């Protein structure tokens, strides 16, 4: 019975994340537009875009290898799996016993590996620039992310997300400096990982300034649809991750009954809306930083992660 409901919750979770991801992107765009005194496109525009791209033919460069064609599906698959592991509205997911936080980082890392290769595959200069910038950002973002995970694992005693979420809701967590520092560092990493302002500009048309967009410049049709959907999923994944670890309120536990699941789902939607609004506010108030400032920005995240971990060695209660 437990196995069946865990499977069921897992299935609902997988469908929910992939269905909600474009909505979150549309919502953030809408909020940003309103902040800029613009009407902005409808919140369901990303769905229309993905449908449009799926119907369009794929234009492939003559020298594109199999890697270029396979990458969009690989990226979508790994991002989807990673997003499916994070408890969004309920803990006790089927997959969460097989994959922990470190596995999520590994999944996203392999997605990035393929995307960076695909960026260079066709041999255009923009793809190469994008890949080199992306890898520069990744070399700093990933260690920072690992240090953040160590902090949480030291506090919660596990790298398993359901356990962390359960620990965070329990009274024994208290107010900890290390967790506050880890939260700030995680937000910084999330901004860099999702190619948002001030690290990258997702809305730019300037090919010379792009990071993520430069790598996917040669993609079209269903390939681009997969990449766009994966990008939306990744953004949602990071907001879910922050929500799950730092505000795991109203997360339904296994076999809690239909009402608890519904409350969990509503709470999740509210968390996404709050996260999306905050991101839009932050992006509107900042200009993009010069590309060589990004290492300083991520270096700060890395140092914060390190500081949080060290604090825990000084005292378990910090």
């Amino acid at each position: 019975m437990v196995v069946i409901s865990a499977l069921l919750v897992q299935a609902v979770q997988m469908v929910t994340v992939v269905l909600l991801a474009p909505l979150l992107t549309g919502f953030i765009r809408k909020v940003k537009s309103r902040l800029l005194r613009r009407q902005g496109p409808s919140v369901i525009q990303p769905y229309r875009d993905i449908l449009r791209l799926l119907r369009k033919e794929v234009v492939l460069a003559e020298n594109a290898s199999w890697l270029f064609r396979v990458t969009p599906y690989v990226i979508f698959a790994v991002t989807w799996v990673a997003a499916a592991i994070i408890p969004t509205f309920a803990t006790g997911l089927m997959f969460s016993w097989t994959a922990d936080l470190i596995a999520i980082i590994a999944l996203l890392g392999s997605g990035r590996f393929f995307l960076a290769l695909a960026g260079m595959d066709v041999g255009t200069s923009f793809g190469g620039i994008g890949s080199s910038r992306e890898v520069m950002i990744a070399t700093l973002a990933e260690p920072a992310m690992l240090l953040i995970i160590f902090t949480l694992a030291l506090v919660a005693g596990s790298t398993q997300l359901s356990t962390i979420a359960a620990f965070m809701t329990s009274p024994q967590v208290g107010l900890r400096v290390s967790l506050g520092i880890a939260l700030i560092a995680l937000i910084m990493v999330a901004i860099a990982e999702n190619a948002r302002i001030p690290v990258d500009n997702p809305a730019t048309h300037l090919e010379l300034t792009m990071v993520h967009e430069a790598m996917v410049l040669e993609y079209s049709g269903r390939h681009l649809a997969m990449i766009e959907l994966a990008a939306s999923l990744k953004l949602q994944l990071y907001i879910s991750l922050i929500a799950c670890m730092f505000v795991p309120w109203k997360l339904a536990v296994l076999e809690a009954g239909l009402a608890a699941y519904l409350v969990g789902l509503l709470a999740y939607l509210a968390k996404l809306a709050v996260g999306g609004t905050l991101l839009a506010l932050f992006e509107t108030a900042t200009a993009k930083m010069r590309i060589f400032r990004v290492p300083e920005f991520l270096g700060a995240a890395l140092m914060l992660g390190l500081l949080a971990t060290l604090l825990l060695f000084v005292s378990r209660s910090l």
Partner: protein
Amino acid sequence: MQALADLILEGRPVQHHRPWPRTIVDPMVWTSATVALAEGHWTLLGLWGETAAIHMALLEEPTGTIGVISLEELEGGYPSVAQYHPPALRPERAIHDLVGLVSKDLPDPRPWLDHGRWGLRFPLGDRLPPPPETAPYAFLRSEGDSLHQIPVGPVHAGIIEPGHFRFTANGETIVRLEERLGYVHKGIEALMVGASLDRAVQLAGRTSGDSTVTYAYAFSRAVEAALQLEVPSRAGWLRALMAELERLANHLGDIGAICNDAAFPLMHTHCGVLRERALRAADTAFGHRLMRDRIKPGGVIADLDHEGAAALRAVATEIGQTFPALVELYDNTASLQDRTVGTGMLRPELAHQYGAGGYIGRASGRGFDVRRALGYPPYNSLLFEIPVLHEGDVNARVWIRIREVEQCLSLIAQILDQLPAGPVSIDIPDIGETREGMALVEGFRGDVFVWLRVAESGRIDRCHLRDPSWFQWPLLEAAIEDNIVADFPLCNKSFNCSYSGHDL
């Protein structure tokens, strides 16, 4: 050192060339003028050719003297100006493409405007059939370890005009930028030949869409100079009003667009609202948002009524109230300042050498402004300041625009207050004989230069229009060196040179 006025006396003066003299000189004088240019005594205003002559317009900045020297002995080509004075390089390449005149000792004989796709060669000269095959354009070489090339354009991801940029970069650092322009060549100077004045002023107004008022203004002033016409004073004031409105709208658009290229769209949308208000007021006042085809030789087409004046006053007041908050936002956003300060430095020496006008020159210490230097009416009776900065970075170019927006608002208010009554145009009399005229008018980018010859029939015999961008595009190549590739869009937008006005 010789004064420009003395040089002009050395040649054979040309009759009916106004308002400044033109003389026909021998190659010796031409070369000595070239050397004096290179030594920085004068500024090159324009260099253009005809089938049997080459002309060079010179400016002596301290005295405000302007003169044109022409060379008519062209067997085997004319002595190159560019071999001593690099700003003449692209004009000389363009002269070869358009007219077919050969420059002796030209350091860089590659074609410039002609990409081999016109279906003929030398459209202003012999109109020869094109060669069967054209060699691919040879970009300048850059050699060294770990250098790589990035070709950008001519078609860009955004909706901007076409131009090709060839970067050579070492990682992210730009080692060399080479521009390739000419993609929007419309053949305006060839279309001008034989055009009636009505048609020609329309053509002039289509040289660069964002400066349509300036071009029609400059063209009309050149015709009026050639024919010695005195336009009614109300027409002169209305022209200045349109020119200031155009400057205001373009600067507002630019300030926002520069910030947008640093991914700060907040400034962009707010400036966009103000620009739109200015354009709508222009539409109410003059019947066209960009005020295209409102200025003609002899005056202006539409008079300003009470409703229009009220709309302009209202918009000037509104912008005057809203704009300071935007300036404060620009100045107080540290992340934005971090991008603009110290980026894309243009050295003052280069700005002086190239005679860069507009915000590019003024941000690098060259305070030349035709409105002040020549004081054409009504600017001689208006109060305004010309902001000058010396930093030469993107931030300085933004600040020059901000200060000029403030000056525009003040000028618009002054013009509306002092606008004289009376007729707004006079008829063009019969020409009688061939006459030549020239004019310089300050547009938002800098000084637009127009030279023309009207034939006895009243039709244009030859008209040369020189956009300020001719002397600004090369400076972008210099300013971008040692910057990073990702900062190019920001630098480019802060220059905002015209593709269309340059490609003609």
